[in-house]
């Protein structure tokens, strides 16, 4: 505790008039606040980490059994590569801490690896005594970066080659995401000059990942036989129990994703806000699922589980841009509209012959855009600011990704041969079935 904080107390004891001052003696010391904030990041960190497993199970359940080994490999590898790239250049590219090469646009801390505080650092020597430990912030932010790559892997499943995909992941997690994210969360032009508002990343993370996926899906093309003489041929997921588990794990992780984005837990107000965020996040997921359930029942005569899973996730993405301000009722509305959006946009993409295996673009892209607009409903931002923010981040991510995909396609090719695709990537690319004991029917 600093001397400055003891003096008024001392004074208080002698001079009654200054008692008012005495009341300022903090109920929570700076160090306790710092511990609480760091703890919030650590808890948020492992929760969001687990989303990597959620994405893997969701995607593994929605692809056909002949591509499951490959999908698992991609998901483990993409997270691992993201962890390395974010350390190598991403973290400092995303958080220049005011030190810009191009003011508000490009960090001057590039290329630099992430460095944590020394062992046993004292509060006074901490990088930011008023915030949280650098390590806790680092691990938390890293998980967000990896999430963008997970979004891409689902959309491009069942036909993309492993290594070109992983190269793209390296660029996305090391450069594209950190760059565009720095404009908002790094204190760049979007947050400073435009007043764009995106609490936990409906646009910064989710729509960003969806934009990268969309660019990839366009360059890559649809799976063999997906669109034949004007008809859409469904290719049902091989394990809906696994997909459901994946959805639940993502839902769980989202408490950390949105709750941790409060960035503080060291005061009554902050922990109460985290509580609001938990409640709103949960509500939006629930209403997204219910909306998709009812809508598919009405539209198709039978509820569609895969749409219900997408609906819950769309609800989560929708509330992510502003999980704090809404009432529970508004959160329900925001999430429900997210659920409706996926039900309508999944077939829409198919009409456009854009083959998104797991519905990643509708869930993270379209629902993400809706969620970013929804911020306006709570008066936290203006339509104008939100539009600029989305155009900037989605646009930049899409264009940069498109360039990378085209280069990869030109140089090494990104797609397996038709025969390999039909045989399944597990045998053709990996030589290993995911379910070798079971006869496929």
């Amino acid at each position, binding site marked *: 505790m600093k001397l400055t904080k003891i003096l008024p107390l001392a004074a208080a004891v002698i001079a009654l008039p200054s008692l008012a001052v005495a009341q300022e003696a903090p109920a929570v010391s700076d160090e306790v606040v710092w511990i609480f904030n760091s703890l919030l990041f650590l808890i948020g960190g492992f929760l969001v980490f687990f989303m990597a497993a959620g994405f893997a199970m969701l995607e593994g359940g929605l692809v056909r059994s002949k591509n499951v080994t490959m999908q698992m490999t991609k998901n483990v590898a993409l997270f691992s590569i993201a962890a390395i790239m974010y350390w190598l250049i991403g973290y400092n590219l995303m958080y220049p801490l005011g030190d810009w090469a191009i003011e508000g646009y490009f960090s001057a801390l590039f290329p630099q690896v992430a460095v944590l505080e020394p062992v046993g650092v004292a509060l006074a020597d901490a990088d930011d005594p008023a915030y949280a430990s650098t390590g806790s912030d680092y691990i938390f932010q890293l998980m967000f970066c990896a999430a963008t790559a997970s979004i891409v892997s689902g959309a491009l499943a069942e036909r993309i080659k492993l290594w070109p995909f992983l190269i793209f992941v390296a660029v996305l997690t090391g450069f594209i995401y950190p760059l565009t994210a720095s404009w908002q969360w790094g204190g760049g032009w979007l947050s400073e000059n435009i007043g764009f508002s995106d609490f936990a990343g409906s646009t910064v993370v989710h729509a960003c990942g969806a934009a990268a996926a969309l660019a990839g899906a366009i360059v890559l093309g649809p799976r063999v036989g997906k669109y034949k003489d004007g008809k859409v041929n*469904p290719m049902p997921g091989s394990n809906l129990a696994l997909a459901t588990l994946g959805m639940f794990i993502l839902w769980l992780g989202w408490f950390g994703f949105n709750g941790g984005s409060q960035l503080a837990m060291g005061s009554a107000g902050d922990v109460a806000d985290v509580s609001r965020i938990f409640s709103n996040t949960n509500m939006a997921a629930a209403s997204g699922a219910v909306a998709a359930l009812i809508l598919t029942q009405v539209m198709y005569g039978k509820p569609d589980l895969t749409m219900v899973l997408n609906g819950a996730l769309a609800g989560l993405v929708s509330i992510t841009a502003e999980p704090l301000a809404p009432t529970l009722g508004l959160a329900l509305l925001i999430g429900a509209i997210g659920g409706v959006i996926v039900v309508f946009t999944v077939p829409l993409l198919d009409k456009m012959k854009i083959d998104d295996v797991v519905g990643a673009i509708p869930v993270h892209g379209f629902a993400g855009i809706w969620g970013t607009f929804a911020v306006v409903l709570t008066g936290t931002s203006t339509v104008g600011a939100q539009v600029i923010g989305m155009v900037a981040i989605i646009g930049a991510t899409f264009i940069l990704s498109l360039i990378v995909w085209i280069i990869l396609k030109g140089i090494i090719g990104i797609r397996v041969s038709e025969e390999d695709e039909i045989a399944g990537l597990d045998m053709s690319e990996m030589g290993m079935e995911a379910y070798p004991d079971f006869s496929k029917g």
Partner: protein
Amino acid sequence: MEGDGHVKLIIAAIKPFKLEEVREALTGLGVRGMMVTEIKGFGSQSGHTEIYRGAEYAVNFVPKVKLEIVVADAMAEQVVETIAKTAKTDKIGDGKIFTLDVESALRVRTGEANDEAL
């Protein structure tokens, strides 16, 4: 040793939920064995459509169970009738029964042949 009694192979495609009933009926008849395989059946019953993520598609195959039963000539007709009677639901997709001639049968364990092998 040589069983001289000639034997036949009866192949039947039936609805899966009828399997147990048919097995019991045949056991009653004295049939002592069979081979059962899960198959995808294509026939008049097939061809309804389902919707997956908003896209309609035709279901061309329906799950069926295939029975392969080798029996002595003498029993063949009776077995066919019993299967037919038991598997019948009068709804489309009840299935088919085919009878083929078998040249010889052998029980691995004992070397018994033909009808004695069953």
